[in-house]
């Protein structure tokens, strides 16, 4: 059996050190080792977007990164982003528009939408759809989500 490998990283602003198995995904490390269960696990092969998180400021799939690859990195999850208010406008708009039902996809949707608004503050509906095409929602049919992102973008 392969041994464990020590890693040290920053998660939601706090330093974290652990020893991990090489095969451990970053999203499982966050959920199981750190108890940060806001990042969800869906398909585990990069298709559904439920495990979307920020790695060194870039939106990535938590299921397609090994925890050992995050050694030395800065990770932010839905917990940290919510706490520091980075998603406030989007969260308010999702609530106002009922842009979620079961909520499983919502952390990923919020982070993906925030990444879009960071590069394009006033995206078209087509641009929103294209950008969110990598995040699956099995409840809402997407219209309310597109509405919410559009509404959040329009707010000053």
């Amino acid at each position, binding site marked *: *059996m*392969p041994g464990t*490998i020590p890693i040290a990283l920053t998660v939601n602003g706090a330093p974290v050190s652990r020893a991990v*198995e*090489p*095969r451990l*995904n970053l999203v*499982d490390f966050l959920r199981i080792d750190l108890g940060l269960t806001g990042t969800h696990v869906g398909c*585990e*092969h*990069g298709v559904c*977007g439920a495990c*979307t998180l920020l790695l060194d400021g*870039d*939106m*990535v*799939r938590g*299921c*397609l*990164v*090994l925890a*050992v*690859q995050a050694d030395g990195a800065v990770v932010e999850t839905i917990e940290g982003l919510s706490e520091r208010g980075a998603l406030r406008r989007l969260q308010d708009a999702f609530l106002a528009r009922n842009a979620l039902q079961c909520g499983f996809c919502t952390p990923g949707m919020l982070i*993906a939408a925030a*990444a*879009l608004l960071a590069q394009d503050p006033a995206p078209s509906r*087509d641009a929103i*759809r*294209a*950008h969110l*095409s*990598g*995040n699956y929602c099995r409840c809402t049919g997407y219209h309310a989500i597109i509405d919410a992102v559009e509404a959040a973008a329009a707010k000053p």
Partner: protein
Amino acid sequence: MKPPSFDYVRPRSLSEALGILAARGDGARLLAGGQSLMPALNMRLLSPELVVDIGGLDDLRGIVERDGLVRIGALTRHVDLQRSAIVVRHVPLLAVAIDHVAHPAIRNRGTIGGSIAFADPAAELPACAVALQARMIVAGMAGTRIVPADEFFLGIYETALGPDEILVALEFDAVGPDQRSAFAELARRRGDYALVGLAAHARVDADRLDEVRLVYFSIGPTPVRARTAEALLTGRPLTRDTVTAAQAALAADLDPPADTQASSAARRQMARVLLARVVMELLDPVPIGAGG
């Protein structure tokens, strides 16, 4: 699912990485951006003894243009290609194609070298490399060799890379003022694997094309050149008859597979549609960023 157990090593230099591959050979897999390897591990399609993470080899990153050549390091991410002024200006086919590669979160990790070396028959970048006659710069213990894109892709997930070699960079000719590229693909959803795709490159003189390269993907085990159609589009005025003849010639050039996504006949029809679209684009290009 979860990946099977493996050992992990993160070499600090190319020579260290090559040494590890030479020692471990077939039991080792290279990890670059991981956007193809990780799904394969998670689904247990692969179970390497050792994962060699080359993500720390910063020399393999970056885009440089010099004397009409553009060299792109293998670890250059899709998002870096998308944002590169050098790529937009000198290798615009890549800039257009990248927009169709998966989704933003994947493009933030996935690398050009990973996509080329993994050689997924449905991937965009291998077809672009063939259309542009890229040179693959391949390092091994004995030194570096250059493999033309035409000779690189051998089969499904199979390339000219040996088990102890690493793709370190790709080299492209900067496009000349009379050359143009075009790209089109059909997928069920934005970012999904293409049902059929086409990367094209040609010399354009008014309404005539020369040195035409039409490279289809997701239509065979490797990128597939439509040589008969290329010949029919070369050196004659691009009338409706010319394009129709080239479309008809695809019947001989392509032998598309049938799967749950599309029948062979549907793929043939899509290939004809894409041919007309890229010819239009070659003659009358839409500026990058202005189209869909």
